[in-house]
């Protein structure tokens, strides 16, 4: 198969970038999208040109490293798949393919297709955990958790933190990412206790990192490689209202800041 690729090239964070066109041939349908870029990069290196920089690691759809906007869709046309799991058989021979980095203020561009997603780490750092130290945990079976709750927690916990939701969102909102963590921890009794503080802090960090707001357009859900539902954003908002009411009624928010 042959393809014409249009790839965003930008040597550094402050450099000027542009779409550059490359032709690749000898591509088979069994190749993953990243393996196709590998083929291109090998050729570029041999030509003495710097290869296209892109984040990737596990290549089995779980680490969340790979991040490409392919023909305007985060992770490309296949639903529920990361870029590394997208295979070239999803394209037609001779297609033009546009490859761009994630675009959001919260994801500053570092080079070519590589962006800085440390904003997501900071969102987690602001409350995406249960406050327990190692040791002293009670027996794992001391607290039964209804299977439905635990399944719901798992649905949300699947998030791989790739950033496709924010990249795909017309408002550049990372609310799906945020709500997945809040939804996971809030569905478990272990995380429930801190839920109202958690939502307040994590939402504030989300905003401070420069992400937009959610208007339930639903692009995030379609882009999410783990097909996490926007119902978790609904749940987040519910918890946020609860948090606001609690703070207004009780005054002091638990745990301070």
């Amino acid at each position, binding site marked *: 198969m042959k393809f014409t690729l249009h790839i965003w090239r930008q040597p550094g964070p402050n450099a000027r970038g542009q779409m550059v066109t490359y032709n690749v041939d000898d591509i088979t349908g069994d190749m993953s999208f990243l393996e196709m870029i590998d083929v291109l990069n090998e050729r570029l290196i041999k030509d003495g040109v710097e290869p296209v920089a892109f984040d990737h690691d596990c290549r089995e759809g779980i680490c969340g490293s790979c991040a490409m906007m392919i023909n305007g869709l985060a992770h490309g046309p296949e639903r529920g798949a990361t870029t590394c799991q997208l295979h070239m058989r999803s394209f037609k021979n001779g297609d033009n393919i546009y490859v761009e980095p994630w675009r959001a203020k919260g994801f500053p561009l570092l080079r070519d297709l590589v962006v800085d997603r440390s904003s997501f780490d900071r969102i987690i750092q*602001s409350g995406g955990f249960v406050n327990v130290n190692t040791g002293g945990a009670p027996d794992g079976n001391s607290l039964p958790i209804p299977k439905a709750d635990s399944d719901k927690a798992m649905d949300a916990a699947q998030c791989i933190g790739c950033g496709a939701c924010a990249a795909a969102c017309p408002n550049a909102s990372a609310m799906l990412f945020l709500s997945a963590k809040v939804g996971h921890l809030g569905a478990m009794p272990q995380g429930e206790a801190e839920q109202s503080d958690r939502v307040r802090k994590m939402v504030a960090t989300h905003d401070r990192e420069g992400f937009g707001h959610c208007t339930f357009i639903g692009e995030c859900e379609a882009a999410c490689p783990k097909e996490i539902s926007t119902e978790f954003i609904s749940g987040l908002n519910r918890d*946020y209202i609860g948090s606001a009411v609690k703070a*207004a009624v009780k005054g002091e928010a638990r745990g301070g800041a």
Partner: protein
Amino acid sequence: MSATSAAINPKGPRLRGSASNPFDWLNTYLGSSVGQKILVAITGLLLMSFAVTHMVGNLKMFSGPESINKYAYFLKHDIGAWIWVARAGLFLVFVLHLSVALSLKTKAMAARPVGYAYNNSAQATPQSKTMVQTGIVVGLFIIFHLLHYTFGMVHGIPAADGKGERNYLSLTYKLDDGVVVHDVYKMVVAGFSTGWLSAIYLISQMVLFIHLSHGIQSSLQTLGLVNRRFLPVARLIGYGTAGVIFVGNVAIVVAVWVGWVKM
């Protein structure tokens, strides 16, 4: 660059006791994107309920001049000062809805300083992506509507003597109990008998339908009232309500046009 995770204040904003300082509470909760979106949703739903009430009131057109004029008189006269309270409230809700939504939109635009070269969507409906545009059209329409029927500044009714126009507001009607009131019925018929005015109303109602078809379901989701199982129900409520408002309002225009409702 990202060599260290330079979290400025990774713990989120400090929230002091709201008893001592309610502004902290307001700043924290209503200053956030989620809080503001909730405001937009609540005000949006309030405006929607007004639109429904307004439309139902309008339907009195079909019961003839007595009915609609009596209703209008009731609103303007019988409830007294409450009408002003209601109008002020409505105005406030309208302004809040508009200003918060626009401020969020500005932030959202700043959230993506560099756009994509290739634009595409996976499942977004066109209406969900054009809420601000449709909202602005609806806002302009409301101003136009006020100028047209409330202030009578857009269009007049041909004077009885054939010279010039009479202001809508000068039309009168004598109720069955003998009270002379403003003739809303005649005013409406006069307005919609004019082609270009009807066209504006039809188009605007279409835009309002588009706005509400996403707005209502999105608001329900924003308020956390929807889970995956009830999402289709929320959609139905959204399209249903938007559709009812559209059909009800458009029915009057069409009825005047085809002559079911006439002077």
